[in-house]
């Protein structure tokens, strides 16, 4: 049975009417060298054949023990999260354009926004963004609109910020006349030092990005960095892991109130850890919150609670006047889709766990990573790279190249972490590892045992 409504006759008539020969002719606008070419997809299969192929491929994944983090985190997702999120009433991946007819969806987004504000300590949250990396790009563009004291369109981007986020921010905002300046991290502590920002004191700078915990899992001295930014009329963009906020100081409280301003100005990050599966890298969702003072510079939409003409409570889309379906090219963003379904899952996840539950997840993750670093650090030829306190991720230094070790671990069913050789060659043989609450003591022992074996049996390369 065909699920395509147009018959061959229909297609031929439509092509004739607009005067082209074939459907392929419709793509003539795209130069040949930009086309994807052959995608390597096999010819059409029957449903049964396809089902068998996918089952075989799924089985070949095995059930690896995963210690990779680096921005996407494996947490336990209680069964009700997706049982509820996939109910027909919620299971629509897109944002409603006839919004007020969907009161349930609006209420859910309203509650999501309230939870993001509670976690971040900020005054206002939008309805979500595409993902964590593009949320940072949006935060940079927003900072340029919001910081009227600065004319430079210059943004300080530490190397301790997730390098993939930095790359996305450069791709999106770099083409809009925004200059990113790199700030080095301290090689012994693995964090961004105030001293490395001093050259910019008194200069015309738009914003400083601070990731907490940073890409290496280390805790930055956020109070000092925030105060420095505000003393220099620089906006502070915080990139945070929402799970960590159950234990760490909310960005809305960063700093000591120097220059009369307390807290980060824009807070963003990746929301995947809140009930969204790893799922080969997406779909995930980005979040963003700010001060009320900057609300009109924030991309995306906000759901507000109001009352109807009879005084009954209801929800409506507010502050969508600067979105792309109204402002077109002048919109605050042209990639500001909200991730409705992922936000639904995250809201249910946060509701089920509550503040105490989130705190337990965060505390268990912190403990497991401490256990992991201790266990792996006892293996000959392995030591922690940095001295700063950390959350649930850490960099280890090996006495030999990381890639062959990871390959050997993978053969034993262990994904041992992320090799930093390409992104941070100056660190040497560096490996980024992560353990969340999903890793038990036996898992950590298994990893340490396998690593010890591999390190013993292979010769030191260097």
């Amino acid at each position: 049975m065909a699920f395509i409504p147009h018959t061959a006759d229909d297609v031929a008539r439509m092509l004739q009417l607009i005067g082209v020969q074939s459907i392929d002719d419709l793509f003539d606008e795209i130069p040949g060298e930009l086309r994807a070419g052959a995608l390597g997809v096999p010819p059409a299969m029957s449903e049964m054949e396809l089902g068998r192929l996918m089952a075989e491929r799924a089985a070949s994944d095995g059930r690896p023990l995963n210690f990779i983090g680096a921005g996407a985190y494996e947490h336990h997702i209680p069964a009700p999260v997706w049982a509820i999120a996939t109910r027909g009433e919620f299971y629509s991946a897109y944002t409603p354009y006839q919004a007020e007819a969907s009161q349930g969806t609006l209420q859910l987004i309203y509650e999501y926004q309230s939870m993001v504000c509670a976690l971040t300590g900020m005054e206002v949250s939008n309805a979500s963004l595409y993902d964590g990396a593009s949320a940072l790009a949006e935060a940079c563009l927003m900072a340029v609109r919001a910081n009227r004291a600065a004319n430079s369109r210059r943004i300080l981007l530490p190397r301790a910020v997730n390098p993939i986020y930095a790359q996305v921010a450069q791709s999106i905002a770099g083409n809009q006349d925004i200059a990113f300046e790199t700030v080095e991290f301290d090689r012994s502590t693995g964090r961004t030092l105030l001293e490395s920002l001093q050259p910019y004191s008194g200069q015309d700078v738009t914003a400083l990005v601070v990731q907490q915990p940073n890409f290496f899992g280390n805790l930055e001295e956020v109070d000092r960095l925030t105060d420095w930014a505000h003393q220099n009329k620089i906006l502070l963009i915080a990139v945070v892991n929402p799970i960590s906020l159950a234990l760490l100081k909310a960005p809305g409280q960063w700093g000591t109130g120097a220059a009369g301003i307390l807290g980060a100005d824009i807070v963003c990050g990746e929301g995947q850890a809140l009930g969204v599966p790893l799922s080969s890298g997406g779909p995930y969702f980005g979040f963003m919150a700010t001060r009320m003072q900057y609300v009109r510079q924030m991309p995306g939409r906000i759901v507000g609670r109001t009352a109807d003409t009879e005084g009954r409570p209801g929800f409506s889309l507010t502050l969508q006047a600067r979105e792309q379906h109204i402002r077109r090219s002048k919109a605050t963003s042209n990639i500001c889709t909200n991730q409705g379904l992922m936000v639904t899952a995250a809201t249910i996840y946060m509701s089920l766990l509550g503040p105490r539950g989130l705190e337990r997840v965060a505390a268990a993750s912190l403990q497991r990573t401490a256990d992991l670093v201790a266990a792996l650090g006892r293996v000959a030829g392995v030591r922690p790279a940095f001295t700063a306190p950390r959350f649930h991720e850490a960099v280890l230094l090996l006495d030999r190249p990381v890639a062959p070790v990871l390959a050997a671990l993978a053969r034993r069913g262990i994904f041992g972490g992320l090799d930093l050789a390409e992104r941070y060659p100056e660190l040497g043989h560096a490996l980024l590892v992560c353990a969340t609450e999903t890793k038990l003591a036996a898992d950590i022992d298994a990893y340490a045992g396998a690593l010890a074996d591999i390190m013993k049996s292979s010769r030191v390369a260097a």
Partner: protein
Amino acid sequence: MSNIPKDLRYTKSHEWVRMAQGAAHGAAPNGAVEVGISEHAQSALGDLVFVEVPEAGRALTAGDACAVVESVKAASDVYSPVSGKVTAGNAALAAQPELVNQDPYGAGWLFRIQTDSPLDAASLMSAADYEKYLADEAK
């Protein structure tokens, strides 16, 4: 018919300009001109919920988008009719954006700007020309 005061000049994007000399509103000192949006423009936009005005000191070139008037339906740019340096934005609009709807030629002014050179009045429309322009636009 829309209210179009005779003593003002107008643009095709529906801003008005009050010249310093003989200013009826009398509030633009030091040769600065005052800028707002016309009765027609505020009526087309509907109830404003937010107005963003340029801050004093900002340098503008004629045609620059420099203010935003936002209704529940849309946010629209306001363009500077002249080149110069902003001397004041109307701070009252932060709390009372509705002033633009209620009194577009008076309390609802948007900003004042010190022009770079003596203003060439011919570059802007007279009230009569603007009235004709609106009539043509409505056709």
